[in-house]
């Protein structure tokens, strides 16, 4: 019986140690690695800290896409109230185009230009990234994206 108790104690000790360690890892990681979602209006308000990791979402402004010779792309992202300039070097996702809702991940530089390390667009163009839709709603502008069949049958 003593053997069984000791066995249980060891297991519980090990589990506690593991869970504690994991909890510590998670807390530290959450502090450092999460990216807050911001809107172009929040960038314009100028209260955001440059260098921190953010995600900014909005619609790609018509006619704003500039392709530079070294493969860099520069475009404006809008929530219809304010615009933010985004610079990205790389291949854009297939669904990237003017008027499309997209999310850019990266950091703000000191000139409040968003240096994107990643551009995300939805696989399915009928749906807008949820954050973008919410940002547009907040800016007081909402256009239903795509025509679902609900509209056609009802």
């Amino acid at each position, binding site marked *: 019986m003593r053997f*069984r108790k000791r066995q249980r104690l060891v297991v519980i000790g090990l589990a506690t140690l593991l*869970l504690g360690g994991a909890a510590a890892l998670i807390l*530290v*990681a959450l502090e450092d690695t999460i990216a807050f979602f911001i809107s172009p209006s929040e960038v314009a308000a100028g209260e955001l800290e440059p260098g921190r990791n953010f995600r900014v979402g909005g619609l790609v402004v018509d006619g704003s896409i500039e392709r530079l010779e*070294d493969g860099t792309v520069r475009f404006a992202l809008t929530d219809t109230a304010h615009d933010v300039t985004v610079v990205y070097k790389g291949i854009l996702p297939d669904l990237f185009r003017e008027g499309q809702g997209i999310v850019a*991940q990266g950091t703000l530089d000191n000139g409040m230009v968003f240096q994107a390390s990643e551009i995300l667009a939805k*696989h399915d163009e009928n*749906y807008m990234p949820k954050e973008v839709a*919410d940002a547009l709603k907040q800016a007081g502008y909402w256009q239903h994206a795509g025509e679902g*069949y609900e509209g056609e049958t009802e």
Partner: protein
Amino acid sequence: MIVELGHFALVVALGLAIVQGTLPLFGAQRNDLTLMRLGNTTALAQFGCITISFAALTWAYVTSDFSVINVYQNSHDAKPMIYKISGVWGNHEGSLVLWVWILAICGAAVAWWGRNLPLPFKARALAIQGLIGVAFLLFLLLTSNPFERLDPAPLEGRGLNPILQDPGLAFHPPMLYLGYVGLSVTFAFAMAALIEGRVDASWARWVRPWTLAAWVALTAGIALGSWWAYYELGWGGWWFWDPVENASFMPWLAATALLHSAIVVEKRDTLKAWTILLAIVAFSLSLLGTFLVRSGVLTSVHAFAVDPDRGTFILYMLILSIGGALALFAWRAPMMQPGGAFAPVSREGGLLLNNLLLATATATVLLGTLYPLAHEVLGGGKISVGPPFYNATFVPLMLPLLIAVPIGAMLAWKRGSVLSAVGRLKIAMAATLATAILTYTLLDAATLGAAFGFALAAWLVFGALDDLRAKTGLLQMPLPRVWQRLKGLPASAFAVSIAHSGLGIMIVGMISTSVLQTERILAMQPGETTRIGSYDVHLASIGDVEGPNWMAVRAVFETSQNGRHVADIVSEKRFYPVEGQSTTQVGLHTSFWRDLYFVLGDQTPDGAWAVRLYINPMAAWLWWGVGIMSFGGLVSLFDRRLRVGAPTTATAHRGGKAEPEAPVAAPGTPGAPGAKAGA
């Protein structure tokens, strides 16, 4: 007409599922043979009905019957036949039909091959499966009917999202669902055992083939999805810690833990409550995965249905099933007899450590996946949790696990010694050390971390081989003896070595692609030549081509190394006019040591093309490693001792208690089924 038949068959299946979910349960309680046998009949009949239903929907897709809303929305006449068929499950409603069909297949498989199971146990397990079927069929019929008609019928459909028109993705959902739903069998067996209040070695032996089969399918399904993301998205990576990816990865982690803890139940009759809990958790995570993907609560790059009603339905289903299962567990688990004791350092202890680490890792993934949701609901604003989080939490938890694998496999049952286990791994240790030194000195780009990673992978591969060497006595005994012992080894011994070495090979691919990857982004004029690594890449031609339902810009990169032609690598940007979308076709050239991975971008104003060139060293190892790991699972599945349906030869065992350590010489005693039936 055929479509209505499909709809009708689905309704009949619901009726059958209700019968299957209730009467056999009462029958088992009252020891009524007729009611218990009803479980078999209804499971087989339900399988028949849903097969008709699935076939009817497939028929509607194949014949492009656009009077069915689902077909109109997701198909098009000009689509190649394979994508008309895979289009059946390339959408919300159709993928649910696939889900319930696979569930029915599993139910029928238990009814058909589970003849050695004691009748009351089988009746209860089938009843639980029936209840899961009721929930999903209700969900399907009430919120996501795939057979709804559209009047008047449009002339042409809206087509399938072109990114889904790909062979890899045609087979990814069926495999993944086979894994998800396969875990429902494990779950049903756990519930049945809880109702009976009895878990023993024979239970572990019944449940193991189902867990293994589900695990193999889940592994293959995740790998197919990851492989697809690798060559289709053109982002150069193979795993993005996307919520939908996590949704499939969490059940996999839990199933992997379950696979290992079930061994302890089987061999040593202990860790029983924990194993039952894992079976519940694994299937609950499958359900949660379905909820996350189907409800669209999480922002993901590939969640395709955003419908709050459906989300609410699945949420209630989730609460009811997981809550019910956990309540039953809390009530019955304390009544289970404690099993054999073991020292902390023993095979049991090693497997327990494996379980603790896997469970904690699952918890971190779960937390990372749900944290953004909780953060937003609690008013903390929108956030995203990305790869850095998982690199900082999941990876450190995996390291001790991987280091422990070869040692754990060498420990003795009950009471072992790390020193003696390590002592028997001298060859593996030497090989590991050699790998570490070689990679560190030979590779320019290798850091200490990378060398450590490769050494870890080598430790797994050589440890697994050394384990097999020790079991056969190679290098210690004369060769004829070794051959004798090799022939006598059970398939599961090979399975362990195969699966663990596959894991190591996979890790080689993971580390090399993430640490040693070379990337170049540039704009190239047609006819221009550039250099990446030791390769000269010449943009030989770029022009328009046309496919069955797409138009594309196609670039041909003539690639050579030291003046020797390697390959003409073709990258495309396709445009699908029906769907109004474009996709990327990565130019991929795979060899043993590296993948050349070329992506074509947009044209710049001066006529050049943006291109992204990658060299992914040893990328193929990743897929081969996963394949080998799954193959290990398959080998274990065909171990005669574990096959529930194996012909029973040793009838003398009837009525006897199953030995914890079944001798190899007595096949066909899968848990001595007579033991329970007679009791």
